[in-house]
């Protein structure tokens, strides 16, 4: 299981990476926005995408839309971890096909739960 963590703040990438490691995921790659993330995803081998929304260059929502529009990536599970808390934004993400949405600041438990749920649904 290889996971790509995308956030423009390196501190947040480290936090998420460490939490994922605690959950037993050790194969983790990073990108600092959608533009750098997309080629990594297109290169293949990534099984799960965790991304922020508000990033310079290419935002998380645009990355999500690009992923869903790419036949090779369309089924990739995507978790948004973002400080964007507006209703309409969450609706937009849902319509774009996000698999989970975590609002910052979050707890280790929340992240674990959302990831678990995503894999339950994907596996089931």
């Amino acid at each position: 299981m290889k996971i790509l963590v995308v956030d423009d703040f390196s501190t947040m990438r480290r936090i998420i990476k460490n939490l994922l490691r605690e959950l037993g995921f050790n194969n983790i790659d990073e990108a600092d926005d959608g533009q750098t993330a997309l080629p990594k995803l297109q290169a293949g081998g990534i099984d799960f995408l965790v991304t922020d929304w508000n990033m310079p260059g290419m935002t998380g929502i645009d990355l999500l839309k690009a992923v869903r529009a790419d036949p090779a990536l369309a089924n990739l599970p995507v978790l948004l971890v973002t400080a964007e808390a507006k209703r309409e934004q969450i609706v937009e993400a849902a319509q774009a096909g996000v698999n989970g949405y975590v609002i910052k600041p979050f707890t280790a438990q929340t992240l674990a739960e959302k990831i678990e749920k995503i894999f339950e649904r994907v596996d089931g």
Partner: protein
Amino acid sequence: MSSRSEIKIDARLEQAKSLVKALENGDGGLAEGLINELAEMSQNEMFQEVGKITRRLHDSMNQFGLDARISELADKDIPDAKERLNYVITMTDQAAHATLTAVEELLPVAEGLNDRSNKLLEQWGRFQQREMPYEEFRNVSKEIAGFFEYSASTSEIISKKLTEILMAQGYQDITGQIIRRVIQLVQDVETNMVELIRLSGGMNEGDQKKQNEPELAGPVVPTLATGDSVQSQDDVDDLLSSLGF
């Protein structure tokens, strides 16, 4: 305009002629009245000019949406920014305390672990040197078993506290995002002030204002500096002082 100024000149000429006549006739009262009328005339013109300039500034401000934007900045955005910055203080305060609390709780745990393992190490050394009576060894062996349990529960506490420290660092992302927005606001204030000063200085009213530069232009990066924007507070200060502020 030229016909209007001709009328003005004619009117003044008439008054000047009457003034000369009044003075020649030795009519001091009439002469004084005429002098006052002339003075009043030029005063009125001055007031009209001030009025026109004021109106022109007001119109220009409206035209560029400055009036509304400046009101919005003062009424909403700047109070908002103060709120945001206060929230940054709150978040950094909470994160620092959460981290310090976890460290304060971890230090005695690490100390206890160190003490117990040092004590066992000493006993283990004596056992290896065959300096330990059997009775004592039986106790030490119990202690070793207890130590395994203790170290398992201790490492659980340590990793729980470390996760707390890890999560507390999330403030950097949130406060960073908030501060970015405040930086954008400060930039917006600068731009509006400069525009206002330019307009009140009566410079190039007809200039095309660069409408809608990208909403998220973000902070000015010195290496990406362009000539048409201010680069620093010093630039704004200089501009202000050159205009007599």
